[in-house]
């Protein structure tokens, strides 16, 4: 029983982390309709920023978090305004934007490696606390914070999308860009905001992941593959679907190692990614149009 509980808890933690990445990725995909792979490096940048502000510069932790989130939003906006928007203005196709985003990912990852070095970094904010026993599973207070804050975040994101004017505009653009611009929605403004909000979500993900795990220059690639896989499983066009898909991925990986050696954790994610891309590219909860010919 305790193995099952432990795997459930681990799946929940992994799922929360993946969902934090996938939610921003999917939000940006919704309004822009291209795969912003560099979203993974936004997470890594946030983690390293927090490390710089808090661990290197010694700034107060909560103020460091605030600074990190502001910089994350700015970073997202810069990518959009500096690279994606000029490409879109030149009528670049989605695949060009995808390739450009992989270029940004590689570029920034290697910049991180030059600036901070290839060795792992640790943010020592919370002393490694005694794990709590939870139905036979061990869980640390930080992990509880991760799970709770992601749930709170997703609920508030849901209400933001449903209740605010900007959220409504984003959904309108995601649903039908032409129609949205006919009814007077400024597309560029909405796209800019979705990059800012999506990247702040990446910032929050980076902070929580940075507190839980070691920082590695290449962490962004691993995270975006997971977040992307989660989004594909759920349905990339919908933020709630992507979040659900990410939890499914987290559980699948962890329950999977009940049967398989733990080295196959990655393989489970990739197998799911491939199966969904090939047999159900719109995901479990996504809509059919726009994916298949």
């Amino acid at each position: 029983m305790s193995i099952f509980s432990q795997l459930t808890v681990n799946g929940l933690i992994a799922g929360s982390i993946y969902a934090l990445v996938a939610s921003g990725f999917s939000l940006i995909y919704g309004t822009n309709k291209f795969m912003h792979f560099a979203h993974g490096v936004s997470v890594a940048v946030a983690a390293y920023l927090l490390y710089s502000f808090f661990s290197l510069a010694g700034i107060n932790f909560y103020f460091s978090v605030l600074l990190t989130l502001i910089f994350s939003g700015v970073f997202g906006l810069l990518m959009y305004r500096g690279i994606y928007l000029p490409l879109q203005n030149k009528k670049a196709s989605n695949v060009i934007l995808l390739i450009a985003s992989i270029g940004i990912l590689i570029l920034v990852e290697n910049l991180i490696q030059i600036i901070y070095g290839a060795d792992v970094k640790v943010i020592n904010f919370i002393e490694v606390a005694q794990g709590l026993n939870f139905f036979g599973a061990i869980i640390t207070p930080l992990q509880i914070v991760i799970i709770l804050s992601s749930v709170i975040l997703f609920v508030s994101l849901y209400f933001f999308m449903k209740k605010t004017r900007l959220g409504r505009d984003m959904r309108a653009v995601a649903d039908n860009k032409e129609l949205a611009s006919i009814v007077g929605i400024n597309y560029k403004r909405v796209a800019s905001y979705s990059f800012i909000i999506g990247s702040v979500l990446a910032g929050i993900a980076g902070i929580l992941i940075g507190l839980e795990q070691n920082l590695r220059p290449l962490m962004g690639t691993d995270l975006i593959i997971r977040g992307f896989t989660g989004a594909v499983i759920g349905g990339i066009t919908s933020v709630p679907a992507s979040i659900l898909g990410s939890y499914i991925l987290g559980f699948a990986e962890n329950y999977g190692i009940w049967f398989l050696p733990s080295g196959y954790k990655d393989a489970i994610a990739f197998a799911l990614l491939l199966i969904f891309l090939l047999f159900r590219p719109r995901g479990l909860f996504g809509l059919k149009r726009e994916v298949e010919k």
Partner: protein
Amino acid sequence: MPVEFISPYITNLLIFIGIYIILVVSLNLTLGYTGMLNLGHVALFAIGAYTSALLMTRLDFPFVIAFLAAGIFAGFFGYVLVLATKKLKGDYFALATLGFAFIVVNLLLNLQGLTHGPLGIPGIPKPSLFGLTIQSNFSYLIFVAIVAFVSVFIIYKIVKSPFGRILEATRDDEIGLRVLGKNTVKLKYKAMIISGFFAGIAGSLFAHYLSFIDPSSFHLSEIILVLTIVIVGGLASIKGSILASFVILLIPEVLRFLALPSSIIGPGRQIIYALILITILMYKPRGLFGRVDLE
């Protein structure tokens, strides 16, 4: 032992350029000529490298067989890739092929009984042809040059033939070509098999030159490198791909002459490639000799 006319440093660079020319020109066949947004080409390269290395180290196959098997096996995987993805459009096709590349690297890491996982395969023998072993780097360069020349010549003949013309028509308007009675799906299979074959033999050349391979040679950054070369040279331009292979692979060599530490040279090289890629996409998306747009 032939006389070494050129310095070992230049020889080494030229060998890599030769291998990349095969890899990039074969990618241009699918990406540029046929319009298939194939981001999984490096995986076929990896499959060729591992096939050839394993056949020689594990099963003592003669080089010629291992070399051809590398091409055939990679071509077969090209076929499987099209079979699996033929229903997908645009960026989903691109992503599925990218996903395929991730999966191949992951399998190379995890099928430890076969591939030694992250430890890689050491002791890959130098090729021997007709009883002669290609020992020195200089003779390896000659060998690579011959293979590259023949490969490029064949691909050139293909793209200039009536078959090549309907590959280009597939790229320009698939429906328009189907109503003229051409089976475009079959054409894509053929293009991918040929492209995979040459990626596979490039992989074989790569493995036997380095005599050691591990999964890290086939990561995302490698995909960016081959894409950068194809795009800089120009889609549907063989001349462009060849020229760009020289230019792009030589540019980061500047870092060596700046006497930078090796911990900076590695990432520095990636940064240069990524910057070139982003810049060319933004300011000259057709590259040096491109005739068509990437869509």
